[in-house]
């Protein structure tokens, strides 16, 4: 078998193998590229401010007070825990929700957190949260991408030779130009 034919078959089959992973990394890549304090690519975070009756009692805050606050908020989610973060501020944790209560004013700040469907899973893999064996799977994928690039480069010949070199050059120049301008 001629080396060009072998190279073509390698490029084609590695391409098939990489379709799934490339889609995962492409979708997640765009999402994690825009991480900021205003955008979490894996979770939706909804904030809301409401109020309850101010707590004027002098007695120590207890679970009955928590139950009363949750009842006022008509909160039915599963209770996780509660922490007094300052003498006048209580933080209540409900499954998927954090509720901050300023006892004397009755001001309530709620933060609802939910996993973004699909994005949570693809980011979980892209950011290598599972660690362990996934680290090696991702390494193999990176090597396969390298091979894709190499076999792709070796495919440049014939009538499209000039175009192949120009496009490869452009692809290399974009990051190099950016580095030169930004460093």
């Amino acid at each position, binding site marked *: 078998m001629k080396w060009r034919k072998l190279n073509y078959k390698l490029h084609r089959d590695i391409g098939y193998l990489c379709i799934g992973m490339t889609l995962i990394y492409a979708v997640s890549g765009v999402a994690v590229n825009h*991480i900021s304090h205003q955008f979490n690519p894996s979770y939706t975070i909804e904030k809301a401010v409401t109020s309850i009756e101010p707590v004027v009692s002098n007695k120590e805050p207890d679970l009955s007070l928590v139950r009363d606050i949750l009842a006022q908020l008509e909160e039915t989610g599963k209770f996780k*825990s509660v922490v007094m973060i300052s003498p006048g501020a209580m933080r209540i944790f409900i499954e998927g929700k954090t509720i901050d209560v300023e006892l004397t004013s009755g001001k309530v700040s709620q933060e609802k*957190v939910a996993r973004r469907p699909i994005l949570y899973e693809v980011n979980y893999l892209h950011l290598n949260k599972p660690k362990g064996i996934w680290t090696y799977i991702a390494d193999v994928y990176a090597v396969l991408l390298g091979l894709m690039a190499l076999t792709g480069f070796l495919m440049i010949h014939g009538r499209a030779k000039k175009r192949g070199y120009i496009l490869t050059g452009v692809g290399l120049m974009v990051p190099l130009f950016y580095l030169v301008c930004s460093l």
Partner: protein
Amino acid sequence: MKKTTILLLFFFSLSLPVCAKDLMLGEKITLNEITKVSEINAQPEKYLGKKVLIVGIVIDVCAARGCWMDISSDEPFQKIQVKVVDGEIIFPLEARGRTARVEGMVEVLELSREQAYRYAKHKAEEQGREFDPAEVKGPTKIYRIRGLGAVIE
């Protein structure tokens, strides 16, 4: 059909760590003795550079990258921050309100006035509140734990 089953099992096995009840992150916990957060806060210099195991409720988690979490103390109104290298460990937002066992080294951040200003501004941005420059009084020291491993129960 057989291939599909194997593929499904493979992807299911990947999702197991997400579903696990106790979430283990980073290195395995090696210490047995728990150090109270209040003790570290009271005498931070005594624990500086030492490996400790703390237990508490996760009060907050970095909403952008999951690179830190605040752990409640055994004393009311106190907490300590656990910071990890970005990407090495990612604390999930679901950890809020759950009990965490964290092993790590006690470290200090010594900030000049300018650094303290930037740090306070960054914290205000993270918490989505307005930054008040008056809260920066001058150079400051922040004691925290460089997290090595954690179990979120």
